[in-house]
């Protein structure tokens, strides 16, 4: 995919009035204090790494955005949304059960662990799990669709799009305090916003609004 906002990086605003100290402190953690494994077993951790490399987008600007470490941290600290759908196990238990079930499904279908499948097969397999086309016995009473959508995918995506690089690629404004925005109408931009480049490489001109 060609980048829409190639010269935009939220972190370029780090020292500007779009950032305040407390937000800098949070993002410093996110960028530089990636936690180690404390909740998952090594096997679970490796599987989640393999899963999130398919479920999360591939960073356009290269590198990788850590996902598993942050989910591990949330679960280790019990820092979850707290509520659960009736019939689902408590969140921590759901993660262990769900990861085990996915691995068991992969082995049942392909005689190999999920991580060893090629990416095309992985995607086909994940679509099947997403639709709930599973062997209920391997899920020990847990709803596979709910685990996939409400826990696994929501969790992975929630970590991915909390990362400044992911936000820069989509042209998101990012932190905005104390300075917010001045030009908020259609096709209006403040100088500290992302500049969008069209598919032909030219900067998008601010067209006339229809109104």
């Amino acid at each position, binding site marked *: 995919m060609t980048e829409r906002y190639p010269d935009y990086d939220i972190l370029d605003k780090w020292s500007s009035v779009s950032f305040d100290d407390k937000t800098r402190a949070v993002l410093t953690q996110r960028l530089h204090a990636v936690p180690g494994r404390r909740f998952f077993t090594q096997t679970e951790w490796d599987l989640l790494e393999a899963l999130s490399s398919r479920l999360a987008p591939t960073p356009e600007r290269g590198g990788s955005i850590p996902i598993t470490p942050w989910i591990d941290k949330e679960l280790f600290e019990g820092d979850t949304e707290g509520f659960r759908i009736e019939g689902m196990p408590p969140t921590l238990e759901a993660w262990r059960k769900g990861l085990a079930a996915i691995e068991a499904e992969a082995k049942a279908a392909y005689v190999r662990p999920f991580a060893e499948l090629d990416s095309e097969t992985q995607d086909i397999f994940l679509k099947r799990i997403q639709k709930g086309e599973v062997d209920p016995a391997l899920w020990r009473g847990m709803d596979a669709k709910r685990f996939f959508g409400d826990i696994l*995918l929501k969790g992975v995506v*929630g970590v991915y799009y909390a990362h400044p690089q992911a936000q820069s690629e989509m042209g998101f404004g990012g932190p905005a305090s104390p300075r917010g925005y001045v030009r*908020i109408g259609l096709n209006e931009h403040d100088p500290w916003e992302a500049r969008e480049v069209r598919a032909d490489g030219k900067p998008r001109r601010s067209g006339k609004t229809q109104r």
Partner: protein
Amino acid sequence: MTAPTAPRARDGRAPDVFTPDGWVPMRCHADSEEVDFAIVGAGAGGATLAARLAEKGFSVVCFDAGPYWRPLDDFVSDERASEMLYWTDPRITGGDDPIALAGNNCGKGVGGSTVHFSMISLRWRPEWFKARTKLGYGVDWPVTYEQMESYYAQAEQALSVSGPVKYPWGPPRGPYPYRPHEVNAPGLILARGAEKLGVKWCAVPLATVSAPRGKSPPCVYRGWCHYGCSTNAKQSALVVWATRAVAAGAEIRDMAMVGQVETNTDGTRVTGVRFQREGEWRVQKARNVVVAGYAIETPRLLLNSATSRHPDGLANSSGCVGAYLTTHAGPGVWATFDEDIRWNKGPPNMAVTEHWNYTDEGKDFHGGYAFMSQGPLAREWGQTLAGRGLWGAELQREMAKYNHTAGFVPVAEVEPRACNTVTLADEVDPYGLKIPKLSFSYSDNDRRLQAHSKRFMGQMLEAAGGYDLWDNDDTSHLMGTCRMGDDPKTSVVNADGRSWDIPNLWVCDGSLFATTGAVNPSLTIQALALRIADRIEALARRGEL
């Protein structure tokens, strides 16, 4: 930033919301001192009532399970880190249409859910207070619009609501206290669509100031309102009512979780509340107790306070405590636009149409809906698209359109039904208290109403130039689990929020709603709290408390 781990409001002082690291003096009460009012919950209902009762000279202790925030120190421009604002204690949610909780509807901390709310401040359509009599559906409230009108005006003044000179629907209400905000791009999409379809629209009356007010600076359109307003432009219950309450002599006790309302031995009066602060269970004596923990925690507390005299929970002879749980349905319709929208800028909902609240013809359902323009931030939008089933490259392609997307979400009326409930589960939380369990299913009418809203919102997005439409399902506010009424057999409290069963036990929050109406509830919750405060004063004067 992480949430404070120890209470701040103590030893004669409370945090000053307007100053980094600042303090204001606060009158404090001993547990053994019988105060006039113990209020459970410092949100839209509780903090408003605390302020007004203290201003009338009553002694008040208002408890909140969460922290006493200092927005300038605590609130960050980061979605993940802001999850500290939400109620994330264990809960179970079920039924055919389980309601998502936490950030979706429940705050924890002084200011309650208004700390992360969207500031939409709308009055009810007058007929809704008498929906059964005047519109032929739902039930009547025990109050009328005429009784509420001056309290709506008082609430709008207190919040310096910024809105249009002339609001296009409902009875005249004079200009709003502050001028309207400039409408942002997603709001202009709604405006354009509305004009194409020939329906009225207007700038949303918002509880964030469009000009300086006291120590609040004007809104800077940063758009992070769902994550706490770090500038204090937002007129939340934290900034407005908690500040007034403390100034008037109320004590706000933060990080104090109330586990039971205590009763005397024959169960005829309540005597105070049992609460945990810093790991220790204590009892605050009080002449009156007001429960204001929002529509899940309020019934939960009353149910968890059951005694041999009140085996089904306090104030529950009607069986209505926890019943008639309602929400506002909030299905979204979304579209792509060629123009640059950049919907992260400005408060999330800047334009509204109440067309289907004030039009009764052409409906295949009872009730109404308003809808507003939207402005989700990056992570929230990513999770919304994930909820649509997108991941990997597909998700990435759709996220790349973020700045070119707009959409509408209604506040859609939901029928009150006895089968939708908050009950206690057989499981305890870290305080040792039984956790709440919700059961919620839509009725056929609810589904028809939502289908209508999706069709209409879709037409309007297309009329505005949107393409590649898609929709999803969601909910917002919670209401109804301790409803007010005229009949002790079918309601928990009377028009004053006073329980039918125990005269010194009151309710003052979103759980009072007998029907949902179809606008966001907080202005009505605050207007009710203002009215209840006046009623309490009048009853006290007559010796009837």
